[in-house]
């Protein structure tokens, strides 16, 4: 148990709560699944209960819900224009899901869904496949004009197209790794500094005096992690909107 406490990786372990097997695949209901479900329930309940008054002059909870709504709507409208608003439910769901999952992960002993690369990668692929499928369905082959910007001298077209293709393919990776790495690194750092406090205070009076520093660091990092939790959800949303803009307006 003592080893568990100072092991910063332990918090990312996935434990099966209800083992389920589908053919060759292990699709057990795990602690990760539990917190995904918790994210859905908390996110939905918060937004529904915050707006239960439906008041003309909102109370503070309703203001938060309305601010989330108008913030995401503004990001999407600024990046993709009015025609981008058809993706508003998707973008808003992504923002709220990531934000609530990040914030739930800040509660001690809670699992952070977004600290696993596969989750963030799936969300990123959802965005990119939406871009590709909608882009081809709406613009046909013109969608690939995205990779050959107009106004480039003929000799440079192959080079520029190659760069554009690589940058397009790296998008889901950068989008998912950014979120995953931020959540993972933040939680590890927090755990390491909190672990210092435990180990040092076990080493007598001098250790207790020395543990003040890592304790202050833990407090400061906790505040920083709350900021990161929001900021990463925001960044994920902004980038999603910019990528969706490519699907709606493929010409550069």
């Amino acid at each position: 148990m003592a080893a568990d406490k100072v092991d910063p990786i332990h918090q990312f372990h996935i434990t099966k709560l209800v083992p389920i097997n589908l053919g060759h695949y292990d699709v057990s209901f795990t602690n990760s699944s539990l917190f995904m479900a918790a994210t859905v329930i908390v996110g939905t309940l918060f937004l529904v209960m915050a707006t239960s008054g439906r008041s003309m002059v909102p109370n503070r909870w309703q203001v938060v819900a309305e601010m989330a709504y108008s913030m995401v709507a503004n990001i999407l409208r600024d990046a993709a224009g009015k025609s981008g608003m058809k993706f508003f439910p998707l973008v808003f769901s992504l923002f709220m899901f990531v934000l609530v999952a990040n914030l739930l992960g800040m509660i001690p002993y809670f699992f952070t869904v977004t600290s696993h690369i596969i989750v963030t990668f799936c969300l990123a692929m959802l965005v990119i496949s939406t871009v590709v499928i909608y882009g081809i369905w709406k613009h046909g082959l013109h969608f690939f004009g995205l990779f050959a910007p107009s106004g480039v001298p003929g000799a440079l077209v192959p080079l520029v197209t190659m760069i554009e293709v690589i940058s397009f393919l790296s998008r889901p990776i950068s989008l998912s790794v950014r979120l995953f790495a931020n959540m993972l690194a933040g939680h590890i750092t927090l755990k390491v500094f909190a672990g210092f406090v435990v180990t040092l205070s076990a080493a007598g009076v001098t250790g207790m005096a020395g543990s003040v520093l890592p304790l202050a660091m833990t407090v400061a990092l906790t505040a920083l992690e709350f900021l990161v939790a929001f900021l990463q959800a925001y960044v994920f949303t902004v980038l999603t909107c910019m990528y969706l803009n490519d699907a709606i307006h493929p010409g550069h």
Partner: protein
Amino acid sequence: MASNVNTTAEVHHAGAEHGGAFPPFDSSTFASQILWLAITFGLFYVLMSKVVLPRIGGILEARHDKIAKDLEEANQLKASSEAAGAAYEKSLAEARQRAQTIASDTRSALNASLDAKRHEAESSLSAKIAAAETTIAGIKAKALAEVDGIATETAETLVSTLTGESVSRADVAAAIAAVTVK
């Protein structure tokens, strides 16, 4: 129940032994995470697009409409109050004009009647003055006429007393006339 707890404990134990792999890169958990993410995120998407977003959007739209309506109403009220203000100003100006007319009319009527009365008084006074002057002139002429008589008599008495001679009244009168003419 007991077997269930047992399996959970075994799984946990197995996980701890297995612990070499870094959990986020442990591909044995990927299938479960992908499936449950698809289920939960799909549910979340449906809840957002069917329940939450129409709800918040409706609230925002209702507020937007209400504000627009109230602004329009306020503009109408402002316009009507401005019209009322203008009408008030106009009637005030009219009333002031009328008051000025009435005042000037009254002033000129009073002036006219005053003038008439003054003229009357002046003319009656000048008539009286003229009558008095006539009377005075008459009295003066009468008195002057009597002065000649008195002078003649006095001169006659003086001459007769001083010289002892009697002088005719006609001579005395001629002498006095000669003196007074001179």
